[in-house]
């Protein structure tokens, strides 16, 4: 019901796209606010009208070029940069400019109307395309058209120019240009009708750490602008005209989250040591050497998993030794003296491009082969990576991690290849660290069951929970009907983890975990209690997990894990873990980046 000022409370559920809570006034970006009519132009004035149109095109081009340079620079965000360049090309496209000028002259109408008719023609063609990806390009055409129209009707060129600082931006969807424009405007939060967790808006919002909710469907329709709103980036909720009680509730949550984040920040310099003085290694999973800074900024103890697949993907050749060496060396140097665990190639044969597959012996040959199985079948590919890794090893503290091991014989073979490669390097005079540690990933029930045997051939084991869950429960992650099986606290998984950890202790090798499960602060006590000595996670998760470690005693964690072992199903285990963690860490369940 509207209040006496005509305001209507509306709570909309969307998708949480970026963490945090924003409370503030709304500014609505509306696309359809450009209005103009069809106006007939006297014959002797049509050339003036064409000139006015071309001037608007020219201005739009300059605005786009300026934006491109100002916001992204020459080596800025490549994706944005290309899109903006493409817009400039479209702007000067004869299909747009010549046909509009022709229409102004022929039909003696105003530039706005002529442009709109031309745009309609182009839209019609795109709408008939069957492929959704191509049909989506329609929004690019609309965007370019709107740039010209805004200059014709004398509006400021970008909708985002209307955005006021310290407001919550409500929009149907945001183009890359809109988001770029808003970068420096201190936006409190974003709420959009369209989008997904992986859409452009979501990615930008997360990068800027602005709370965002997308896929709200009706937020533009319900919002008027100027009213108060709450954007809840944790639950994916947007409330327009919230009640006083709601505002107070959210203010409380907001304050606690800020305090908590500040508090976690103090952990960065501190060790991940339990109250009974056991130090756990908290390391990070990263994909690019550029993430090295995030490792130290979050107070991690190194890298537990550096994936090398990106070196091989999206190209038609294979990465040469020197290219790989440069990459590994830079990473090791940047993080020296922290340990850096680099995982050897973990790709399936089907992930290679057809040209690459030709190079390494044909697609059919490699069908069904993945990771170490593929590397041992094609040792010439594996050797290049091992050579690069060993040569990089003199520049920092390297650990080599072999993925998807299921048999002792595979590790025996890896050692043979390593020894051959070392001999080669020696004879060529390349220095390397002869004591580089070798580790094996445990990603299948088979590997977990023979962890004691595998441990004889490595100096560390690393449990990859994502695959281990999938292969233990025989369930694909994305099957929505079987999500009940995808529970990391399932007794079967806890037992497997314990088996591996116990084998590690007996053999004197470290046991790490590097799946998503390891970055969940709610699980940290359980994992410590099961006997893991290293947890590897996304860099941003480190401070929260460290907080739990520093406020726990290992002996208590062990007793807790033992208790959990007796529970009959994941339901009881989850309930027990939540109860304990909620009592000891009430702030964990809100305001904590844990998804």
């Amino acid at each position, binding site marked *: 019901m509207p209040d006496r000022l005509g305001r209507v409370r509306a709570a909309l559920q969307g998708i949480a796209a970026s963490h945090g809570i924003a409370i503030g006034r709304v500014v609505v970006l509306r696309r359809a606010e450009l209005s103009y009519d069809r106006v007939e132009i006297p014959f002797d004035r049509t050339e003036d009208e064409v000139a006015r149109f071309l001037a608007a095109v020219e201005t739009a081009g300059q605005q786009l070029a300026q934006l491109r340079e100002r916001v992204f620079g020459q080596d800025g965000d490549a994706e944005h940069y290309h899109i903006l360049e493409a817009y400039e090309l479209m702007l000067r496209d004869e*299909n*747009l400019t010549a046909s509009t000028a022709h229409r102004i002259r022929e039909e003696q109408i105003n530039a706005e109307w002529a442009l709109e008719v031309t745009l309609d023609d182009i839209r019609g063609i795109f709408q008939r395309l069957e492929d959704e990806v*191509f049909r989506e390009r329609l929004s*690019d055409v609309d965007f370019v058209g709107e740039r010209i129209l805004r200059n014709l009707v004398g509006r400021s060129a970008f909708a985002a120019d209307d955005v006021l600082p310290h407001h919550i931006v409500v929009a149907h969807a945001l183009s890359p240009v809109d988001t770029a424009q808003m970068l420096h405007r201190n936006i409190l939060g974003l709420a959009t009708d369209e989008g997904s967790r992986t859409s452009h808006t979501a990615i930008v919002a997360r990068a800027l750490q602005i709370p965002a909710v997308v896929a709200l469907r009706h937020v533009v329709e319900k919002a008027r602008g100027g009213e108060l709103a709450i954007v809840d980036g944790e639950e994916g909720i947007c409330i327009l005209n919230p009640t006083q009680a709601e505002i107070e509730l959210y203010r409380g949550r907001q304050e606690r989250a800020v305090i908590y984040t500040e508090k976690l920040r103090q952990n960065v310099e501190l060790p991940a040591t339990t109250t009974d003085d056991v130090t756990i290694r908290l390391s990070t999973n990263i994909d690019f050497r550029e993430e090295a800074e995030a490792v130290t900024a979050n107070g991690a103890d190194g890298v537990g998993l550096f994936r090398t697949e990106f070196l091989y993907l999206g190209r038609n050749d294979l990465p040469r030794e020197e290219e790989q060496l440069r990459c590994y060396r830079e990473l090791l140097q940047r993080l020296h003296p922290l340990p850096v665990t680099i995982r050897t190639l973990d790709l399936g044969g089907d992930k290679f491009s*057809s*040209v690459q597959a030709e190079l390494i012996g044909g697609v059919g040959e490699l069908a069904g082969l993945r990771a170490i199985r593929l590397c041992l079948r094609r040792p010439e590919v594996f050797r290049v990576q091992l050579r690069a890794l060993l040569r990089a090893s003199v520049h920092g503290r390297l650990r080599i991690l072999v993925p998807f091991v299921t048999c002792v014989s595979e590790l025996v073979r890896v050692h043979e290849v390593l020894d051959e490669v070392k001999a080669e390097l020696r004879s060529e005079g390349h220095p390397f660290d002869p004591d580089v540690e070798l580790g094996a990933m445990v990603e299948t029930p088979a590997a977990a069951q023979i962890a004691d045997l595998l441990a004889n051939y490595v100096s560390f084991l690393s449990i990859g929970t994502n695959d281990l869950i999938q292969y233990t429960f025989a369930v694909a992650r994305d099957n929505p009907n079987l999500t009940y099986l995808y529970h990391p606290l399932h007794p079967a998984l806890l037992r497997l983890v314990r088996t591996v950890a116990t084998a590690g202790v007996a053999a004197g090798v470290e046991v790490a975990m590097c799946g998503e499960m390891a970055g969940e602060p709610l699980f940290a006590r359980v994992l410590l209690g099961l006997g893991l000595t290293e947890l590897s996670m996304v860099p941003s998760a480190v401070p929260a997990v460290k907080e739990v470690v520093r406020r726990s005693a290992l002996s208590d964690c062990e007793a807790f894990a033992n208790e959990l072992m007796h529970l009959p199903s994941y339901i009881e285990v989850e309930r027990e873990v939540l109860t304990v963690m909620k009592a000891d860490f009430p702030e964990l369940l809100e305001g904590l980046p844990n998804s």
Partner: protein
Amino acid sequence: MGGGVRDEWFVQEVTVGQKVGTHLRVVKRILERVSSLDVEMSISSERHRADARSLLDLMQLAAATGDRVRLEARGAQADEALAFVAALLAAPSWDAEIDDA
């Protein structure tokens, strides 16, 4: 090269290897290259025949991986244009290195 040869249309067919088809990045790169050459060129998919100098035109090709497209070119640098466009369309990604020699 004599005038008669210059006016001749050269035709080539190519299978699109680009993983997401003729998307924006690819057609933009085609346009930029073709615009720098002395050539008149069109690219035709099942749906559309596009002037290689118009981005809006090229965007309408909507050719997916595995689709056949027909290239037609004439002018002093027709060979070069054909070689470049054919190689780029056949490549798996927009930023594939194309030998321009």
